[in-house]
């Protein structure tokens, strides 16, 4: 069990509206600005906004930029209400401070995840921008002795038409910071947005195209040592003994220390540390290690699936319905462990100072990591300073419920009594074999058709490890033994089926650490539900789009995206196939993180069973489109990420050892496998919802349904076994 507990978590809390104007501390004192020879003075207008004498507008991002466009999105919202000039806007990662920078959907915890960054910040950033604007206006009105109502703000310039006076933000900033923070602010009418809904360019493009973007891997500190760790070959194994003599003989190796996670080799540089690690001789105690292989785990899950599980959703009377059914369709589905495999392997820099500690990290889980590091060093959380850097991908991995790699770095520093700052570097193999995978799952589904051929019953049984149990989120997300994220996307099946039962088995004796992986439960539930529905449609002799529309009458947002995707894909028109090739079109629709995505995939299957996804047409409803181009970008990327899992992604175990180590065994798709992607956005004035993850879930089922349309074969295992598709 975790010693850190996050309560009051509700993904839907924002629907109740946010309370009041909470902008954190207003510090009218000036802070020294950017590094450089010219001292630029920044006025801190509120917790999210600093304005420099040079007219720079600095937006403090409480969320991690890991590729999803958060820095640009948050800045867009604030800058629009501020009426700033976009070219003067820059973004800085906020420090760890849950009082000011908590995720408003997570109660008192700061962190990024669940595709909540825009959704939880929408009101907050609008108010922060509008309050800043009001303070600039007040300062100008006072200086010019004119009425505030007569002042106009546009593109970073405050002006008064009557007197012809004008001032830039920079000229007013220090005075503005002394104005009282307004308790109420007037937000713009959406029709007056000048940045939101437009094509504001990414703020991180320049740094990420010239090599200057700073990732954790790029941190260098005076006297810093690099640590590479020998990790146990099985989860739960520990160090029995080790011989470091060969490692210590390598030039550059400074020290070798045992930590709870293994044996760390510290060196002056990464290559020496790696050579030292590889030269270690470690005897492992495997008495408590997890020793099963994937095949044995799956066999166990299939056995468990024979018995009823804990009920996650129940409507009508499924037992009676299935007993009286005219026809029953059934299928089972298998999903492997999946690694996040971000391009930047996990890493972390920790510097223990006299009465504090400083951490550099692509920091996704501030409150949890800060609490754990503080506890290890016997410090108070506020004595641990977290520097949030860009993350070279995460997909959930850097929001580790157990702070695994962050704590590993801290343990190394503790083991050397804090005598040097340490950069822990995981080699690709450490990252691939480091656990915290998307859990393996087995699903069994049955559908009942009545005498008139109507779909009247649905039974979905899932078997898989819980991500949340034992995490700081347990109190909020595990209810009556049901981990919400194990059944999300299944327990809330949107289709109008009068009798529905969803039940869950959660094995507790599997020693493989599991974690959220981009789209979490929906990464498997969307597949089983949407492929199975097509199988049912085939049994009913119905068109997959027509059947969905029939069953979604109560869900207008699903219908909206489904119709849009079908129309843009010219659903129902024939696809031309070359000689010897089979082509098909498939559809899937899924809600996740309060957003709705439908995708139509077009697939070519060759005689040998190999396949190419040619084109994917996506329709998205994520509320107000803060940055339409970033929405397209996220959905394009989600298609590629999900396709990697559908075609290749699989972490397998043999006698408890992970079989894959690098990108040869675990292969994300490459450019030649990337389909053409079209993204269509449903116009909306509703509050924004998630977009980092929701593009992932419908892809694999849409592709599988397209394969079935081309070949008549429904695939029940991910990654796809193309041998089943040989003509």
């Amino acid at each position, binding site marked *: 069990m975790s010693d850190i507990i996050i309560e009051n978590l509700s993904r839907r809390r924002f629907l109740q509206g946010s309370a009041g104007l909470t902008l954190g501390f207003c510090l009218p004192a000036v802070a020294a600005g950017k590094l450089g020879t010219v001292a630029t003075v920044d006025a801190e207008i509120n917790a999210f906004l600093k304005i420099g004498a040079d007219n720079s507008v600095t937006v403090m991002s409480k969320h991690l930029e890991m590729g999803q466009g958060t820095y640009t999105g948050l800045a867009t919202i604030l800058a629009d209400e501020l009426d700033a000039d976009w070219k003067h806007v820059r973004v800085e990662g906020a420090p760890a401070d849950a009082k000011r920078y908590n995720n408003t959907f997570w109660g008192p915890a700061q962190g990024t995840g669940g595709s909540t960054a825009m959704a939880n910040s929408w009101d907050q950033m609008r108010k922060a921008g509008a309050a800043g604007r009001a303070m600039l206006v007040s300062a100008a009105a006072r200086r010019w002795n004119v009425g505030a109502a007569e002042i106009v703000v546009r593109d970073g310039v405050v002006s008064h038409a009557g007197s012809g006076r004008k001032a830039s933000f920079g000229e007013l900033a220090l005075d503005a910071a002394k104005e009282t923070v307004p308790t109420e602010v007037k937000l713009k009418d959406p029709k007056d947005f000048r940045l939101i809904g437009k094509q504001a360019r990414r703020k991180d*493009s320049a740094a990420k195209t010239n090599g200057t973007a700073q990732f954790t891997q790029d941190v260098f500190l005076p006297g810093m040592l690099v640590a590479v760790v020998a990790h146990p070959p099985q989860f739960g194994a520990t160090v029995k003994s080790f011989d470091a003599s060969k490692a210590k003989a390598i030039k550059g190796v400074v020290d070798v220390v045992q930590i709870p996670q293994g044996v760390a080799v510290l060196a002056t540089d990464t290559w*020496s540390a790696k050579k030292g690690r590889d030269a270690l001789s470690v005897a492992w105690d495997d008495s408590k290690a997890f020793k099963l292989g994937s095949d044995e785990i799956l066999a166990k899950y299939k056995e468990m699936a024979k018995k009823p599980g804990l009920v996650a959703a129940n409507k009508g009377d499924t037992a009676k319905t299935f007993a009286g059914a005219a026809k029953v369709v059934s299928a089972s589905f298998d999903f492997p462990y999946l690694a996040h495999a971000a391009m930047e392997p996990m890493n972390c820099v920790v510097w223990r100072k006299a009465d504090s500690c400083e951490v550099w990290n692509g920091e996704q889980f501030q409150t949890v990591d800060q609490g754990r590091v503080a506890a290890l060093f016997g410090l108070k959380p506020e004595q641990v300073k977290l520097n949030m850097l860009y993350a070279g991908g995460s997909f959930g991995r850097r929001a580790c419920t157990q702070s695994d790699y962050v704590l590993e770095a801290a343990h190394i520093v503790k083991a050397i009594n804090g005598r040097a700052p340490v950069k822990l570097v995981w080699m690709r193999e450490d990252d691939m074999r480091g656990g915290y995978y998307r859990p393996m799952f087995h699903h069994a589904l049955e559908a009942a058709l009545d005498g008139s051929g109507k779909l009247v019953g649905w039974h979905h049984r899932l078997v898989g490890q819980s991500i949340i149990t034992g995490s700081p989120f347990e109190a909020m997300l595990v209810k009556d033994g049901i981990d919400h994220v194990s059944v999300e996307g299944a327990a809330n099946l949107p289709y109008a089926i009068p009798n529905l039962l969803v039940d869950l088995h959660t094995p507790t004796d599997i020693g493989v650490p599991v974690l959220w992986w981009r789209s979490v439960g929906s990464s498997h539930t969307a597949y089983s539900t949407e492929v199975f529905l097509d199988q049912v449609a085939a049994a009913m002799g119905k068109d997959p789009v027509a059947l969905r529309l029939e069953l979604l009458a109560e869900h207008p947002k699903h219908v909206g995206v489904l119709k849009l995707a079908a129309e843009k894909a010219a659903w129902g028109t024939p696809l031309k196939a070359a000689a010897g090739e089979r082509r098909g079109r498939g559809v899937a629709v899924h809600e996740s993180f309060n957003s709705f995505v439908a995708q139509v995939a077009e697939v070519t299957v060759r005689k040998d069973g190999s396949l190419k996804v040619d084109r994917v047409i996506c329709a998205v409803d994520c509320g107000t489109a803060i940055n339409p181009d970033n929405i397209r970008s996220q959905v394009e*990327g989600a298609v590629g990420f999900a396709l990697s899992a559908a075609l290749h992604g699989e972490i397998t175990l043999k006698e408890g050892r992970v079989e894959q180590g690098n990108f040869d065994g675990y292969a994300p798709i490459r450019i030649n496998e990337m389909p053409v992607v079209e993204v269509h956005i449903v116009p909306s004035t509703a509050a924004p919802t998630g977009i980092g993850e929701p593009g992932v879930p419908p892809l694999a089922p849409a592709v599988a349904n397209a394969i079935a349309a081309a070949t008549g074969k429904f695939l029940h295992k991910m990654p796809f076994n193309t041998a089943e598709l040989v003509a």
Partner: protein
Amino acid sequence: MIKLTINGKAHQLDVAPDTPLLWALRDTLQMTGTKYGCGQALCGACTVHVDGEPVRACSTPASAVVGRKITTIEAVDSQRVGQVVQEAWRKLDVVQCGYCQSGQIMSAVALLSQNRQPTDADIDTAMSGNLCRCATYVRIRAAIHEAAQALA
């Protein structure tokens, strides 16, 4: 001591001869634009140019490139093709997490330096050694075409 010519400048490096060029660049010279991703020439995040050819720095010993002309992302804008590619990348907002993009750009610049009008198939061949876990491939392809047009 190993003597390397990087971005037109001579450097004396005190590294073991087996040290990959990647770690010599990153840890010894603190030129961090070139990234570590796999250590086995599987992902392309470490791509640099050696005499104009794209090379995986993680699997190239520093001692093997003595006397050769090494160019990294930090100096890719010293040639027009490099500037045009960076501009296309920015215009289309190709990047997401950005970690692989130094390598992508180095591969794209090498391609366009030799082939001013690459087809989609040429792009697949030249770029398939560069993984992007964010799957920005749609935009990488578009940006290469965009840069090719600008260079035409």
